[in-house]
């Protein structure tokens, strides 16, 4: 899969994908009570790969990426992140969580802390980084997402787009090897979507491993190595973006694409 992605790369900056496996999901199943949300998921993500996950509402996209950092527990199968298998061992879970950054649809910034404190909290308390160093790093990433001047404000005083960029910076401050994005732009007004996508594109160009649940097909075409289409808790189709959009194989994918690109 990774090889095909490399050969047919869509021209986004550096498309280097290594053979090193970042995430390995094997025969994974999950139920909510009796409801079978995820069915026999098999997925290998290589270091440096950018994967876009799309699919109709309720198809289990969020659940899938939330299983990767154990916000949700799977009941069957195996998930290995960075060589560590996710099990009930709390030590492993904390270790994986500090390697995997996550950006949420509704930002989930901590409203009682300033932007800077939001960014330094986890490095200081989880990674035991000295405060000064953590603050320098936070300012570095805030500059990168282009809002260093907001560092002393509170999240409630920022626009949605700014908050989402802070959320990205907050995750980056933990120096994660993998970033998960769950519909990062779908709670934003159109004019703010671009600023967040630009930040994400920049991140992709630096070679971050990214799993992005999104309906921004332009983003998928620009940076993804692979697009995954999910329906009813299963991976229905996956392909490199150009093939995926121009030549979808399954009827469900065609229907979905016609609905999402149709208007």
């Amino acid at each position, binding site marked *: 899969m990774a090889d095909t992605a490399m050969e047919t790369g869509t021209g986004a900056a550096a498309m280097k994908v290594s053979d090193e496996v970042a995430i390995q999901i094997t025969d994974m199943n999950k139920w909510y009570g009796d409801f079978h949300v995820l069915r026999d998921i098999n997925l290998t993500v290589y270091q440096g790969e950018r994967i876009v996950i799309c699919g109709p509402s309720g198809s289990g996209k969020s659940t899938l990426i939330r299983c990767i*950092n*154990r*916000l949700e527990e799977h009941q069957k199968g195996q998930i290995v992140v960075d060589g560590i298998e996710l099990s009930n061992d*709390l030590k492993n879970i*904390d*270790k994986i*969580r*500090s390697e*995997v*950054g*996550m950006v*949420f649809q*509704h930002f*989930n*910034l*901590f*409203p*009682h802390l300033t932007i800077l404190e939001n960014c330094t*909290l*986890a490095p200081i*308390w*989880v990674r035991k980084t000295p405060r000064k160093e953590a603050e320098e790093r936070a300012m570095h990433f805030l500059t990168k997402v282009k809002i260093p001047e907001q560092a002393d*404000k*509170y*999240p*409630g*005083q920022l626009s949605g787009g700014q908050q989402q960029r802070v959320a990205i910076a*907050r*995750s980056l401050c*933990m120096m994660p090897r993998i970033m998960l994005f769950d519909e990062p732009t779908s709670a934003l007004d159109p004019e703010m979507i671009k600023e967040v996508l630009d930040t994400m594109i920049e991140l992709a160009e630096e070679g971050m491993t990214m799993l992005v649940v999104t309906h921004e097909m332009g983003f998928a075409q620009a940076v993804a190595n692979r697009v995954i289409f999910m329906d009813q808790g299963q991976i229905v189709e996956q392909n490199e973006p150009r093939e995926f959009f121009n030549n979808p194989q399954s009827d469900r994918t065609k229907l979905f694409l016609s609905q999402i690109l149709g208007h």
Partner: protein
Amino acid sequence: MSDTHAHTVAYVRDTMLPPEVPPAAERGVIRWMRANLFSSWFNVLLTILGLAVLWSLLAGILPWFWNSVWVADSLSECREIRDALHGTGEEVSSACMAVITERWNQLLFGFYPQDLYWRPVAALIVFLAALGPVLFASVPRRLVWFTAAAPFLMYWLLWGGSIGGPLAVALGFAAAWGAFVLGSRFSGALAATIGAIVVPLLYWLLLTGPVAGLIGAVIPIELQFVPSKDFGGFMLSFIIGVAGIILSLPLGILLALGRQSNLFIINKCSIAFIEVFRGVPLIVWLLTASLLLNYFLPPGSNFDLMLRVIILVTLFAAAYLAEVVRGGLAALPRGQYEAADALGLDYWKAQRLIIMPQALKISIPGIVNTFIGLFKDTTLVVFIGLLDPIGMSNAIRADTSWQGINWELFVFIGLLFFICCFSMSRYSQHLERRLRTDHS
């Protein structure tokens, strides 16, 4: 856009308007009065009615207070002085505040030895100083060490005795901390938590006595011992109230967390505790404290009644606080827990840094409400024979020279409680304002 309108629609402003002061009728006292007191006929009527009620109240109270007699030895002497001043003809209302000037020491300190009054006063000063770093952001953080040491210092000032006692008790907290650190290093967070609870309890029950003796022998500093039975007056209420408030908050938070916990035993125990303590009247708990608690404690541990009352008041208030805090926890969006988890914060760090600061902030009004309730409920201890201000006032009114006096004592006691409760209320409003982060 139709052609006919095109030339009228296009418009560019070339001078910007400066801001202006609102017109006179829209400003100041007159405007306020018109808007709030005389906006309609009905409102005018209410205003007049309100003024009349206010007038009749003040007309009754002010002369009573204004004509107070401040120096006298008994109620009858008060009456004589009043009659001498105002003539015996008509009844002039006059307060006999002499009872306060005569007996203030009992109302404030009970039977605490007169020559040692400086000790409760010093303890009060220590208390107020210790509050600084906790209550006000402008006080340097480093002073929390003083705050941590203050309870032991205050205990020693109030009760006296060898300095070994409070130091030995303080060591229990050090033991708890040690157990927690060792527990979390060598096994899980759960073991650490259990260790941090069990180790100090065992230490306090079994070892404090000998350790206190040992320290006392090494550092022979001693204050004259004052037994709890000499404590009384407002000082007693204040000690019970403050101790209850300080101890019940952490316990209430732990109970609220316990009630939310997924661990079956902890969850059920917390629920049982909360429901039992909340469901039984405080007075029953106080009677339990005075009569029954000795049966449950290990033989030989002769627990001081005041300490027992503090424990039960604390447990009672903690049950209420747990529910208040739970309300705050429930109001937090799930995303906050998820973001904390996703960043790799463990349970206690997430609680301490993310969840509790927000949940407690939401719960401030409810928490302060509970605190105020607790503080006033300390007057119930009069029913188990402790001489709180009400108990003292009963004793004073039983004295032949002050028989028949009521209002002056109750006004004084009420005022003391009001000052404390009103301060708490004002502080909570200040805190809510300070913690607001949603506006610039």
